[in-house]
């Protein structure tokens, strides 16, 4: 004798699945819209300063050094003035002339070295930075510096500093 078990199993109806899929589809659409808008915004504002927390420390030190600059030596301690090396002569707190060398040659790093004569006294290194360079800026009365830094292809820093007194170019 063959017994036949009767079950009341049933899956979802087509209507149920359609409604659930429709809701999920709307939801996915919203997610895609939001993420694409975020990406558009990121492209518009590609510079991420939060990735470079040391920038403000570098800029603050550079601002003070240029502000105190009396002239810009061409060469100090084996470093030559160039777009990747900024040399300023400042007056040290004891009255002597101290040369400060900002070395941007290592990408992502800024080395600040101080010299008395040609003898290095200190070195301070900031890492995790955009790529720096500088150029002289003459407003007619003063020779200042324009510091630029690029975060990838984007201009992240563009700052001009002038010394408080007229410095030699």
């Amino acid at each position, binding site marked *: 004798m063959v017994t036949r*078990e*009767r*079950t*009341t*199993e*049933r*899956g*979802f109806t087509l*209507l*149920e699945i359609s*409604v*659930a899929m429709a*809701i*999920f589809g709307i*939801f996915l659409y*919203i*997610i895609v819209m*939001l993420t694409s808008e*975020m990406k558009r*915004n*990121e492209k*518009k*504002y*590609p*510079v*991420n*300063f*939060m990735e470079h927390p040391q920038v403000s420390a570098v800029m603050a030190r550079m601002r003070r050094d240029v502000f105190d600059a009396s002239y810009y030596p061409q060469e100090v301690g084996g470093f030559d003035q160039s777009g990747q090396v900024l040399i300023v002569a400042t007056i040290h707190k004891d009255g002597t002339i101290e040369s400060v060398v900002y070395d941007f040659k290592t990408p992502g790093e800024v080395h600040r070295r101080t010299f008395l004569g040609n003898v290095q006294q200190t070195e301070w290194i900031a890492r995790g930075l955009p790529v720096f360079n500088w150029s002289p800026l003459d*407003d007619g*009365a*003063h020779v*200042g510096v324009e510091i630029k830094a690029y975060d990838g292809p984007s*201009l992240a*820093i*563009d*700052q*001009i*500093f*002038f010394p*408080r*007194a*007229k410095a030699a170019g």
Partner: protein
Amino acid sequence: MRRQRGFSLIEILFALLILSIVITTTIYMFGQRQRRMREANEVILAYQALSNEAELWRHVSFDSIDPTKEMSFKSTDFAIIAPLQPYATAVRVDQPNDKVRNVTLTIRWGDGGKREARLSIIRTNTGGGNLW
């Protein structure tokens, strides 16, 4: 007799509702974070431009800062604030007394100029050509 059944439509909808609330909240928080980071970056860019402008205004002679005339930014290079476009710049000069002139530099951008960064410098008449 074994009676098995799947989830009802109500159960599925309720589960989807909870899921959507969780995901929407996450996306909203993520979006807020992105927006705040973007706004912080914008302020940094704006203050760089203002700082450069202030540096230029420190060097001009006291007499050339005329509170009766309409003044504009002296910078010619605005590449640093290009991501803020469209933006507007403004200079206001106040003269609280004969020997002092306050220069207020302003950049407005975003949502019809609702966002604003402002920097003021005080110039005093030292009798010379300029402060230096």
